[in-house]
């Protein structure tokens, strides 16, 4: 009943603070055209379209899939619009993959974007808690206390975050799509950057980007007609938990652990650190690398920071994490999750260019959202599952 599904085309925009040169349509088409060219398909080959993005208020267009229909040649086709907060890029890829796995369609175009310069992300990301005053401190204000809790629990060295940021920013220099590129990036430069939300410094924070990412997914039959190498989807998983209730561990959320466990089970993986070659993990603030290493089972609880400190997660390390530069280098929120999924696919297709991980055969894409409560993950491989 469940059909095989592969990534056969990937396209990204140049991500930037303000893409004033393109409309919403233009931004989306820049990524879509590249993905379709990569897959060597035309509009008539696309059976359905799944659009994903974070809150409509970022751009001020309500249910924008309706407007994007013309630029995406969607007339006569099924279109779905997914929104699962920050994890949405990942969820969108998973919903699209399920259309192929279920045997409903042969080829599905996945389109995600955010044009954050059209609105005020800081405001839009300030979730109002019931019976609490809105602090309008954005996502950093929400996550900083959780990071401090992680540091207190694990006893991680204070410069772990700086080391993550240095690595991701160095990786980002190798990626032509990166929004942020600091050619002279250094440990000192990050350490000396202003403290925004203690312990998160300015250069340990993701940017607010305009950008899009598109992917063409294909069934086993349809995949044969695309000339490039395919990235086969070995497993997908999603999990959600409530924002707050007594007893919830929002530093190491159960939804993330459960999601990873199901993912590995479906992919037939028992030792993820050894069996996976690299991972693209949603790290919007540097400290989330060690936190997710533990949550995803790559390191024992309280030990994730050692992977960073020992250089394991570096591009030339034993288990490269965010070889692309990650969310710290580009963050068009609605697309960020699919970018993680797509970058994992690029690695196993051997098409990651200057940041290619040697011999990558199996990789993970990871996205999270809300108050660390929505998770979407996939594992892709260069061989069929």
């Amino acid at each position, binding site marked *: 009943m469940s059909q095989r599904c592969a990534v056969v085309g990937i396209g990204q925009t140049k991500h930037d603070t303000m893409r004033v040169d393109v409309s919403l349509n233009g931004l989306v088409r820049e990524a879509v055209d590249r993905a379709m060219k990569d897959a060597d398909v035309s509009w008539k080959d696309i059976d359905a379209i799944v659009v994903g993005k974070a809150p409509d208020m970022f751009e001020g267009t309500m249910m924008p899939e309706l407007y994007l229909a013309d630029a995406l040649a969607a007339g006569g086709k099924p279109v779905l619009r997914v929104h*699962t907060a920050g994890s949405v890029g990942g969820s969108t890829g998973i919903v699209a993959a399920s259309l192929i796995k279920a045997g409903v369609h042969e080829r599905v175009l996945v389109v995600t974007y955010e044009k954050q310069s059209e609105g005020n992300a800081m405001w839009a990301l300030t979730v109002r808690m019931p019976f609490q005053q809105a602090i309008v401190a954005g996502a950093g204000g929400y996550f900083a206390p959780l990071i401090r809790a992680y540091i207190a629990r694990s006893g991680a060295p204070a410069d772990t975050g700086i080391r993550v940021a240095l690595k991701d920013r160095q990786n980002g220099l190798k990626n032509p799509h990166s929004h942020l590129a600091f050619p002279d990036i250094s440990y000192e430069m990050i350490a000396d950057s202003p403290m925004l939300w203690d312990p998160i410094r300015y250069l340990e924070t993701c940017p607010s980007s305009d950008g899009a990412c598109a992917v063409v997914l294909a069934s086993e039959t349809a995949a044969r007609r695309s000339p490039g190498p395919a990235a086969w989807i070995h497993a997908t998983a999603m999990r959600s938990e409530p924002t707050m209730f007594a007893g919830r561990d929002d530093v190491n959320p159960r939804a993330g652990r459960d999601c990873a466990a199901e993912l590995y089970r479906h992919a037939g993986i028992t030792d993820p650190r050894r069996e996976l070659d690299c991972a693209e993990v949603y790290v919007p603030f540097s400290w989330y690398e060690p936190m997710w290493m533990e949550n995803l089972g790559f390191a024992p609880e309280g030990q994730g920071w050692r992977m960073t400190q020992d250089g394991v997660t570096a591009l030339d390390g034993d288990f490269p994490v965010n070889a692309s530069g990650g969310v710290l280098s580009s963050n068009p929120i609605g697309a960020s999750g699919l970018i993680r999924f797509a970058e994992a696919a690029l690695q196993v297709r051997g098409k990651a260019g200057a940041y290619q991980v040697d011999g990558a055969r199996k990789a993970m894409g990871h996205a999270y959202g809300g108050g660390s409560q929505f998770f979407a993950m996939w594992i892709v491989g260069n061989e069929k599952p």
Partner: protein
Amino acid sequence: MRQVAVVSFAQSPSVRRETDLNEVEMLMPVVHEAVARSGLAMREIGFTVSGSSDYLAGGPFSFVSALDAVGAWPPIVESHVEMDGAFALYEAWVKLQTGEADSALVYAFGKSSLGDVAEVVTLQLDPYYVAPLWPDAVSLAALQARAFLEASGKSERDLAAVAVRSRRDARKNPMAQLAGEWSVEDVLKDPYLVAPLRRHDCPPISDGAAAIVLAADDVARRACRRPAWISGIDHRMEPHALGLRDLARSRSTAEAGERAGVGRAAVDVAELHAPFTHQELILRDALRLDDRVPVNPSGGALAANPLMVAGLIRIGEAARRVMEGDATRAVAHATSGPCLQQNLVCVLEGGR
């Protein structure tokens, strides 16, 4: 394809302005009623998916707190579409087809009362060339109504008849908001709101919530004495620019209806998501339903129109008639976007 059925349906009453309950409070009893009716335990539900729009609540991430209505602990497999709940139901149907789940909870909520809804939905339009002109929802519908009347030879009297019938039928629907007995002559005396539409041609502004449980194969048979099997479901988009499509017809509904197999056998009843009177007539044509097919015995969106919910309610109402044995084959339809831009058609059958 796996056999997938609607096994239970629950909805809140639709009201003009729900001032006492927030979205979660509105949703909670509905979700629990739907799950209880299915006989499944909350933990047995394999997949949860919802439909809603942040622009109705006027704040980002409105679906996040709605998650409290399902008590997502231990963590659940969950997704959300920024669309009418009917499209969430489609995602659930696909999930069940992959074999990764055997049952799904679908819910939708919307409080249109929180803003000026006719203007809010203007933000769905092309943000560069059309939205700045600020055409409201009623004016766009009137444009479509005019195109339809001229192309079809139908009259304003035909539109009024749809309104009168819908509100009369709604008297038997305890969840309806706008019900009563009017004559065609009465309502035609009203002034135009935006010609050729009068007040009665337009939907009420509604707050409401609804939930449906889907199940596959034997789980469906266990959950419901007479499941409403989904024998076909499909949805299609049309171009956005109003000048690029024939507003007097609904090609996307016709295509979705064909793919869902509407015409393969007789239809006992249809629930069509037609917020404006002329849209019911356009949809009837598109689905080739003859005059004998009862349409919207619930009163339809003309009697209760909670945005993001009204499409899911159509599927629920159609399924309910099959589950209760009043119909063997029912058609449900949901729409999204200005002037019926995107349409979903679902065929539900009993007795398998």
